[in-house]
């Protein structure tokens, strides 16, 4: 069985027509993981027993002639900062090396209700802090399109697993680009939903006002299915909301929602010449790889040819987004990571070094955290602590939150005149393993086109739009808050015209 090209609906059809059983399908993926993992390194843990028992349950339902959900029996992978009950959850950190999740994250509960098959947990930069997955305490994940290159990050394992055909879809988390950039690097689709659209309960917190869980998939249709399964208000995350999802972005007589078939869908969209797409000039200036710029410009031309109105717009505070992000994100992280103290759960230096002569509580903290966290995490805790400390709070943290207001207003103003904003996802192609690891600031620049959406809370999707040699390039669709259905509509249309 060739599993590389299986999408959710194909799997669903295959199961219903009894072309394969869920167990056979799961075993095929497990074998693929076994033979592939040594070079790819996408998984931190494969949970074969759980996967097979979930698959057998689905087979039993089919055997009984019961109706099964669309996602039933679909093998997926979960970023290892999302809790799956009874399975280790390390966040890519030594400090949580032996931590076993005592409960399910809300999104996992929802996926289990849909009867998915969970194959395992995927690699990430420690606590999701990084842009290449090289900051994982455990292993390096390679790009399925070029094994010498990084898979991106921090959801590099989740993106590589989908791109490398080791699962049908995966979940990632995105604080400043951690779903979209690896999705672009690995040639797959990735969505950072509107802030609040998906519950963060059971996600190991990095920066709570920016974090969102989202799907990484092979195409837009799958992305929509998974998003619809995991979204919704959750009493256990008070920032989650019941989204009033807007689908009517394409106005005019030929609404894109008419017609179920692909053909009629395409037709209806090509006729809506009042679709307005904004191209922010700040995303095409200095620092972007010329080959990526040309490819995105080419994509824009194709969209224009189909009848959409392309407008050059300006998001004047783009220049400040990265600096703003690194203050907000690290400040929140320094508070969130205070819980790893060697006492409540996770690693304790005292316990793992029984011969050590630790006599007071302060030393338990210092030693545990000094030993348990990796370099990048320490750097960010330091930066965040500094930005929040007496004398610096106003100059750094408060100022950054004010700049954030301006960044958000840039989007609000422009969304009065355009329906979507189109940009590159990453300023550069997947880079060599080790290339940026010793220069934190250079690594941070990976996120230059993605952080703004997190600061503003708007949804953003990464979609493959072509390749430079073997290396995939992604285009980013940014929409108004809670406009995910419209983003999917546009995405499906673009998939077609990009010749997927």
């Amino acid at each position: 069985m060739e599993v590389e090209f299986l999408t959710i609906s194909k799997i669903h059809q295959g199961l219903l027509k009894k072309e394969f059983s869920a167990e056979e399908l799961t075993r095929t993926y497990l074998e693929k993981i076994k033979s592939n993992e040594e070079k790819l390194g996408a998984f931190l843990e494969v949970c074969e027993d759980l996967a097979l028992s979930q698959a057998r349950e689905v087979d039993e339902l089919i055997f009984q002639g019961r109706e099964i959900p669309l996602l039933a029996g679909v093998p997926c992978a979960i970023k290892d900062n999302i809790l799956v009950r009874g399975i280790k959850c390390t966040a890519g950190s030594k400090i949580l090396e032996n931590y076993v999740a005592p409960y399910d994250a809300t999104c996992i509960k929802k996926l289990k209700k849909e009867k998915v098959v969970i194959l395992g947990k995927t690699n990430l930069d420690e606590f999701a802090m990084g842009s290449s997955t090289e900051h994982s305490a455990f292993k390096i994940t390679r790009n399925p399109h070029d094994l010498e290159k990084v898979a991106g990050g921090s959801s590099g394992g989740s993106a590589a697993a989908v791109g490398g055909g080791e699962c049908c879809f995966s979940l990632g988390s995105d604080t400043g680009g951690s779903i979209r950039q690896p999705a672009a690097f690995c040639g797959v689709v990735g969505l950072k939903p509107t802030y609040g659209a998906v519950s963060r309960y059971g996600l190991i917190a990095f920066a709570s006002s920016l974090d969102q869980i989202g799907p990484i998939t092979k195409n837009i249709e799958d992305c929509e299915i998974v998003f619809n399964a995991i979204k919704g208000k959750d009493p256990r995350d008070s920032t989650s909301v019941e989204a009033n999802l807007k689908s009517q972005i394409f106005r005019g007589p030929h609404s894109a929602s008419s017609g179920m078939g692909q053909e009629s869908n395409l037709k209806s969209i090509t006729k809506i010449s009042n679709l307005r797409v904004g191209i922010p000039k700040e995303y095409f200036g200095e620092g972007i790889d010329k080959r990526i710029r040309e490819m995105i410009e080419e994509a824009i031309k194709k969209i224009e040819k189909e009848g959409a109105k392309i407008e050059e717009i300006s998001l004047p505070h783009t220049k400040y987004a990265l600096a703003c992000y690194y203050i907000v994100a690290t400040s929140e992280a320094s508070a969130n990571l205070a819980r790893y103290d060697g006492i409540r759960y996770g690693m304790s230096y005292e316990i793992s070094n029984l011969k050590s002569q630790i006599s007071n509580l302060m030393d338990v903290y210092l030693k545990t955290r000094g030993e348990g966290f990796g370099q990048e995490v320490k750097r960010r805790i330091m930066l965040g602590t500094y930005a929040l400390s007496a004398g610096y709070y106003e100059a750094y943290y408060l100022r950054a939150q004010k700049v954030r207001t301006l960044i958000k207003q840039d989007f609000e103003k422009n969304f009065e005149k355009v329906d979507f904003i189109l940009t590159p996802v990453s300023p550069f192609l997947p880079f060599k393993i080790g290339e940026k690891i010793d220069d934190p600031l250079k690594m941070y620049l990976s996120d230059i086109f993605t952080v703004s959406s997190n600061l503003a809370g708007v949804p953003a999707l990464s979609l493959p739009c072509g390749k430079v040699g073997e290396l995939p390039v992604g285009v980013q669709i940014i929409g108004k808050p809670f406009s995910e259905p419209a983003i999917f509509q546009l995405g499906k249309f673009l998939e077609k015209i990009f010749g997927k």
Partner: protein
Amino acid sequence: MITKKEVQHVAKLARLGLSEKEIEKMQKELSVILEYIDLLKEVDVSEIKPTFHSVLIENVMREDEAKRESPQIINKLLDEAPSKEEGYVKVKEILK
């Protein structure tokens, strides 16, 4: 440029035990990053209100009720603690 003393102070606030070498490295790296972040100083924010959350959230209230968990769950959570005794999490003495 952040001073070595400042780095040591912040490390203590953050409860991070850093080696001498790490402190030196951190001093260099944080200085470079902070220099980049100084970019924010050129923005006029005098009339601007901060955005702590991207979506407008009002206080989310609920009844202040303790929810009982089963002993199994409680034990599971306790099991995660590195050091415990008689159903309590154990820490070093904090008062002499």
